[in-house]
């Protein structure tokens, strides 16, 4: 019985990687896309972008005040 398990384990170890390599499909972040979590990434990056531009805008206004 033990031998059978060993053989099965060996077979899986050899064949599963070859099966994986045989896939033509290039692995993309499909899961992240399908469960909608990519939108969280976009939201985070947009928040940073908003923050940076708000900061720059305030700096711009401050310098404008100083120029007068």
């Amino acid at each position, binding site marked *: 019985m033990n031998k059978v398990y060993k053989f099965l384990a060996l077979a899986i170890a050899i064949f599963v990687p070859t099966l994986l390599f045989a896939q033509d499909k*290039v692995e993309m*972040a499909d899961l992240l896309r399908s469960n909608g979590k990519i939108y969280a990434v976009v939201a985070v990056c947009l928040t940073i972008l908003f923050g940076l531009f708000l900061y720059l*805008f305030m*700096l711009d206004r401050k*310098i404008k005040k100083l120029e007068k």
Partner: protein
Amino acid sequence: MQKHWWKILSFLLLIYTFIAGFLGKVPELNILNESIRNLYFHVCMWFGMMILFIVSFIYSIKYLSSNNYKHDITASAFASIGTVFGVLGYATGVIWVSVTWVTDQGQSLASVLKEPKLIGAMIAILIYGAYFVLRGSFTDVDKRARVSAVYNVFAFAMLFPSIWIIPRLVGSLHPGSPGSDSGNPALDRNDMDGSMRAIFYPAVIGWTLLGVWIASLKIRSKKIEDKIILNNE
């Protein structure tokens, strides 16, 4: 408001870059996978840097021909934000390298970083770093402006050979070099399809305008600073 349209344009283009850049369709390629989206961020840093350095170079020439101190302020502001973009481009490049060039064939990150394109980019950034060391070493304003303008012309002359020409002569893993899988030059249709171009070019403009905005803030604050110094004397 009319004077600020380009700041708003930069903001809108970058919002577009972030949304379309993350959600848009990209070619499904091995090794690169989703990291191909770095094109909208990493490559834009380098394009922005080159444009900002060109502006800096032009103002250095203008200073040398007119001796107008304002041109020196402009040249140094653009060189400094250009250097920031360059450092960010290098740092993002290293992150990208660590998931693409470092594969499971036994390369270490350290061995991959000894790469003509990366060394060339590092040389270019260091040359511009020396520009600020040079500026800091003068106490006399006119001398500083003149010598650093001359140095800036030299630095610009070294920029394109070190980041473009030498890596192409010796071969490099970086796209756009002989020896890389993606062919030559980097932006041909094998590397980037039309839908990516529609995001990439607006992204370059958006990032560059952001750099111009920061440079303009630096210029204006420097002018205020100089005015205060002059009034106190």
